[in-house]
Protein backbone atom coordinates (compact mmCIF):
# COMPACT_ATOMS: atom_id res chain seq x y z
CA UNK A 1 0.00 0.00 0.00
CA UNK A 2 1.52 3.29 -1.09
CA UNK A 3 0.09 6.36 0.54
CA UNK A 4 2.08 8.78 -1.62
CA UNK A 5 0.26 7.52 -4.72
CA UNK A 6 -3.05 7.54 -2.82
CA UNK A 7 -2.61 11.19 -1.84
CA UNK A 8 -1.47 12.01 -5.39
CA UNK A 9 -4.70 10.49 -6.74
CA UNK A 10 -6.69 12.56 -4.22
CA UNK A 11 -4.75 15.66 -5.25
CA UNK A 12 -5.43 14.95 -8.93
CA UNK A 13 -9.17 14.53 -8.27
CA UNK A 14 -9.21 17.83 -6.34
CA UNK A 15 -7.32 19.75 -9.03
CA UNK A 16 -9.55 18.31 -11.76
CA UNK A 17 -12.62 19.47 -9.84
CA UNK A 18 -11.07 22.87 -9.24
CA UNK A 19 -10.48 23.33 -12.97
CA UNK A 20 -13.72 21.91 -14.35
CA UNK A 21 -16.51 22.52 -11.84
CA UNK A 22 -18.57 25.71 -12.21
CA UNK A 23 -20.54 25.59 -8.95
CA UNK A 24 -18.86 27.52 -6.14
CA UNK A 25 -19.67 24.86 -3.53
CA UNK A 26 -18.09 22.19 -5.75
CA UNK A 27 -14.99 24.38 -6.03
CA UNK A 28 -14.94 24.56 -2.24
CA UNK A 29 -15.26 20.77 -1.99
CA UNK A 30 -12.33 20.46 -4.43
CA UNK A 31 -10.21 22.68 -2.18
CA UNK A 32 -11.16 20.52 0.80
CA UNK A 33 -10.09 17.40 -1.12
CA UNK A 34 -6.72 19.00 -1.95
CA UNK A 35 -6.21 19.92 1.71
CA UNK A 36 -7.17 16.37 2.75
CA UNK A 37 -4.65 14.94 0.27
CA UNK A 38 -1.90 17.14 1.68
CA UNK A 39 -2.61 16.23 5.30
CA UNK A 40 -3.00 12.55 4.38
CA UNK A 41 0.44 12.50 2.79
CA UNK A 42 1.94 14.36 5.71
CA UNK A 43 0.46 12.22 8.49
CA UNK A 44 0.93 8.85 6.81
CA UNK A 45 4.59 9.50 6.05
CA UNK A 46 5.21 10.73 9.59
CA UNK A 47 3.27 7.85 11.09
CA UNK A 48 5.05 5.19 9.01
CA UNK A 49 8.36 6.77 10.01
CA UNK A 50 7.36 6.59 13.67
CA UNK A 51 7.46 10.36 14.08
CA UNK A 52 4.98 11.85 16.53
CA UNK A 53 5.90 15.32 15.31
CA UNK A 54 3.83 14.75 12.17
CA UNK A 55 0.69 14.58 14.28
CA UNK A 56 1.69 17.76 16.12
CA UNK A 57 2.21 19.57 12.81
CA UNK A 58 -1.21 18.35 11.72
CA UNK A 59 -2.77 20.79 14.21
CA UNK A 60 -1.16 23.67 12.31
CA UNK A 61 -2.38 22.25 9.00
CA UNK A 62 -5.91 21.91 10.35
CA UNK A 63 -5.98 25.44 11.77
CA UNK A 64 -4.88 26.94 8.45
CA UNK A 65 -7.36 24.69 6.65
CA UNK A 66 -10.18 25.83 8.95
CA UNK A 67 -9.28 29.51 8.57
CA UNK A 68 -9.13 29.01 4.80
CA UNK A 69 -12.54 27.32 4.81
CA UNK A 70 -14.05 30.16 6.84
CA UNK A 71 -12.73 32.83 4.46
CA UNK A 72 -13.81 30.88 1.35
CA UNK A 73 -17.30 30.25 2.74
CA UNK A 74 -17.78 33.90 3.69
CA UNK A 75 -16.71 34.98 0.18
CA UNK A 76 -19.04 32.35 -1.26
CA UNK A 77 -22.00 33.66 0.74
CA UNK A 78 -21.23 37.27 -0.26
CA UNK A 79 -20.95 36.42 -3.97
CA UNK A 80 -24.10 34.28 -3.96
CA UNK A 81 -26.13 36.96 -2.15
CA UNK A 82 -24.84 39.66 -4.51
CA UNK A 83 -25.42 37.86 -7.80
CA UNK A 84 -28.23 35.46 -6.84
CA UNK A 85 -26.45 32.42 -8.24
CA UNK A 86 -23.49 30.23 -7.40
CA UNK A 87 -22.57 29.41 -10.98
CA UNK A 88 -19.23 30.94 -11.98
CA UNK A 89 -20.16 31.33 -15.67
CA UNK A 90 -23.36 33.23 -14.86
CA UNK A 91 -21.51 35.45 -12.38
CA UNK A 92 -18.90 36.29 -15.02
CA UNK A 93 -21.64 37.08 -17.56
CA UNK A 94 -23.38 39.40 -15.10
CA UNK A 95 -20.09 41.10 -14.28
CA UNK A 96 -19.34 41.66 -17.99
CA UNK A 97 -22.84 43.03 -18.50
CA UNK A 98 -22.41 45.45 -15.60
CA UNK A 99 -19.01 46.56 -16.90
CA UNK A 100 -20.38 47.21 -20.40
CA UNK A 101 -23.33 49.16 -18.95
CA UNK A 102 -20.97 51.22 -16.83
CA UNK A 103 -18.82 52.06 -19.87
CA UNK A 104 -21.87 53.24 -21.83
Amino acid at each position, binding site marked *: *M*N*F*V*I*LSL*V*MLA*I*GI*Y*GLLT*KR*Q*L*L*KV*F*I*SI*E*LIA*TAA*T*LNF*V*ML*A*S*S*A*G*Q*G*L*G*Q*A*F*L*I*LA*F*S*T*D*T*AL*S*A*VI*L*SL*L*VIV*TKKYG*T*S*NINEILKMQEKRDSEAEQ
Partner: protein
Amino acid sequence: MILEILSIGLIVSACLALFLDEVMYSVAALSGTFLFTALLYYVNGAIYAAIFQFAVGVGTLAILFLSGEMLSDKSTKKTSPKKTVALIGAGVVLTLPAIFLSISSSTGTYSDASFGNALWNLSGVDVILQALVILTVALGIAIILYERRNGGK
Protein backbone atom coordinates in the same frame (compact mmCIF):
# COMPACT_ATOMS: atom_id res chain seq x y z
CA MET B 1 -6.56 -5.75 3.63
CA ILE B 2 -8.34 -3.18 5.82
CA LEU B 3 -6.06 -0.42 4.47
CA GLU B 4 -6.98 -1.28 0.88
CA ILE B 5 -10.71 -1.24 1.68
CA LEU B 6 -10.38 2.12 3.44
CA SER B 7 -8.35 3.55 0.54
CA ILE B 8 -10.96 2.42 -1.99
CA GLY B 9 -13.70 3.97 0.18
CA LEU B 10 -11.70 7.20 0.40
CA ILE B 11 -11.20 7.60 -3.35
CA VAL B 12 -14.75 6.48 -4.22
CA SER B 13 -16.29 8.95 -1.76
CA ALA B 14 -14.00 11.71 -3.09
CA CYS B 15 -15.15 10.97 -6.66
CA LEU B 16 -18.80 10.94 -5.56
CA ALA B 17 -18.34 14.22 -3.64
CA LEU B 18 -17.05 15.92 -6.74
CA PHE B 19 -19.14 14.47 -9.52
CA LEU B 20 -22.63 13.99 -8.05
CA ASP B 21 -25.04 16.62 -9.39
CA GLU B 22 -26.89 17.52 -6.19
CA VAL B 23 -24.84 19.52 -3.70
CA MET B 24 -26.36 17.85 -0.63
CA TYR B 25 -25.40 14.40 -1.89
CA SER B 26 -21.91 15.75 -2.60
CA VAL B 27 -21.60 16.99 0.98
CA ALA B 28 -22.83 13.61 2.26
CA ALA B 29 -20.15 11.90 0.17
CA LEU B 30 -17.56 14.36 1.49
CA SER B 31 -18.47 13.21 5.01
CA GLY B 32 -17.44 9.72 3.87
CA THR B 33 -14.11 11.14 2.69
CA PHE B 34 -13.45 12.68 6.10
CA LEU B 35 -14.54 9.51 7.90
CA PHE B 36 -12.32 7.24 5.79
CA THR B 37 -9.38 9.61 6.25
CA ALA B 38 -9.83 9.52 10.04
CA LEU B 39 -10.08 5.72 9.94
CA LEU B 40 -6.90 5.50 7.84
CA TYR B 41 -5.08 7.61 10.42
CA TYR B 42 -6.41 5.43 13.25
CA VAL B 43 -5.44 2.16 11.58
CA ASN B 44 -1.93 3.49 10.97
CA GLY B 45 -1.51 4.36 14.64
CA ALA B 46 -1.92 8.13 14.33
CA ILE B 47 -4.69 8.30 16.92
CA TYR B 48 -4.43 12.01 17.70
CA ALA B 49 -4.50 12.84 13.99
CA ALA B 50 -7.62 10.69 13.63
CA ILE B 51 -9.35 12.54 16.47
CA PHE B 52 -8.42 15.96 15.04
CA GLN B 53 -9.51 14.93 11.55
CA PHE B 54 -12.83 13.68 12.85
CA ALA B 55 -13.49 16.84 14.89
CA VAL B 56 -12.53 19.23 12.08
CA GLY B 57 -14.48 17.14 9.57
CA VAL B 58 -17.65 17.24 11.65
CA GLY B 59 -17.40 21.04 11.98
CA THR B 60 -16.76 21.54 8.28
CA LEU B 61 -19.65 19.27 7.35
CA ALA B 62 -22.09 21.09 9.61
CA ILE B 63 -21.22 24.39 7.91
CA LEU B 64 -21.29 22.79 4.46
CA PHE B 65 -24.72 21.23 5.01
CA LEU B 66 -26.12 24.60 6.10
CA SER B 67 -24.52 26.59 3.29
CA GLY B 68 -25.34 23.87 0.74
CA GLU B 69 -28.99 23.99 1.70
CA MET B 70 -29.02 27.81 1.70
CA LEU B 71 -27.00 28.64 -1.39
CA SER B 72 -27.33 25.81 -3.88
CA ASP B 73 -29.55 26.26 -6.91
CA LYS B 74 -32.51 23.93 -6.61
CA SER B 75 -32.30 21.66 -9.63
CA THR B 76 -34.81 18.95 -10.46
CA LYS B 77 -32.20 16.97 -12.37
CA LYS B 78 -31.44 13.68 -10.61
CA THR B 79 -28.21 11.76 -10.92
CA SER B 80 -28.83 8.52 -12.77
CA PRO B 81 -27.88 5.26 -11.00
CA LYS B 82 -25.74 4.39 -14.03
CA LYS B 83 -23.60 7.47 -13.45
CA THR B 84 -23.26 6.67 -9.74
CA VAL B 85 -22.12 3.13 -10.51
CA ALA B 86 -19.67 4.49 -13.10
CA LEU B 87 -18.28 6.91 -10.51
CA ILE B 88 -17.82 4.10 -7.97
CA GLY B 89 -16.04 2.02 -10.64
CA ALA B 90 -13.81 4.94 -11.56
CA GLY B 91 -12.95 5.41 -7.88
CA VAL B 92 -12.00 1.75 -7.50
CA VAL B 93 -9.84 1.90 -10.66
CA LEU B 94 -8.12 5.07 -9.43
CA THR B 95 -7.21 3.33 -6.16
CA LEU B 96 -5.50 0.39 -7.90
CA PRO B 97 -2.17 2.20 -8.51
CA ALA B 98 -1.92 3.04 -4.82
CA ILE B 99 -2.55 -0.60 -3.90
CA PHE B 100 -0.31 -2.34 -6.43
CA LEU B 101 2.43 0.15 -7.31
CA SER B 102 5.20 1.03 -4.95
CA ILE B 103 7.83 3.72 -4.90
CA SER B 104 11.19 2.50 -3.68
CA SER B 105 12.29 4.63 -0.80
CA SER B 106 15.55 4.64 1.08
CA THR B 107 15.15 3.67 4.69
CA GLY B 108 16.57 6.45 6.79
CA THR B 109 17.23 6.57 10.46
CA TYR B 110 13.92 7.36 12.05
CA SER B 111 13.53 8.32 15.65
CA ASP B 112 10.73 6.69 17.59
CA ALA B 113 9.44 9.94 19.02
CA SER B 114 6.07 9.60 20.70
CA PHE B 115 3.37 12.27 20.53
CA GLY B 116 4.22 13.65 23.96
CA ASN B 117 7.95 13.64 23.20
CA ALA B 118 7.35 15.44 19.91
CA LEU B 119 5.12 17.93 21.66
CA TRP B 120 7.56 18.90 24.41
CA ASN B 121 11.04 18.13 23.06
CA LEU B 122 10.69 18.61 19.29
CA SER B 123 9.01 22.04 19.27
CA GLY B 124 5.51 20.65 18.90
CA VAL B 125 4.26 23.25 21.37
CA ASP B 126 5.61 25.99 19.09
CA VAL B 127 3.56 24.58 16.26
CA ILE B 128 0.42 24.53 18.40
CA LEU B 129 1.04 28.11 19.52
CA GLN B 130 1.46 29.19 15.87
CA ALA B 131 -1.82 27.47 15.12
CA LEU B 132 -3.46 29.40 17.95
CA VAL B 133 -2.04 32.67 16.60
CA ILE B 134 -3.43 31.92 13.13
CA LEU B 135 -6.83 31.02 14.59
CA THR B 136 -6.84 34.24 16.63
CA VAL B 137 -5.99 36.30 13.54
CA ALA B 138 -8.77 34.63 11.56
CA LEU B 139 -11.22 35.25 14.41
CA GLY B 140 -10.12 38.89 14.64
CA ILE B 141 -10.62 39.43 10.91
CA ALA B 142 -14.07 37.86 11.16
CA ILE B 143 -15.01 40.16 14.07
CA ILE B 144 -13.70 43.27 12.24
CA LEU B 145 -15.70 42.37 9.13
CA TYR B 146 -18.80 41.74 11.23
CA GLU B 147 -18.45 45.06 13.06
CA ARG B 148 -17.83 46.93 9.80
CA ARG B 149 -20.91 45.34 8.29
CA ASN B 150 -23.06 46.28 11.26
CA GLY B 151 -21.61 49.79 11.34
CA GLY B 152 -22.46 50.29 7.66
CA LYS B 153 -26.15 49.71 8.24
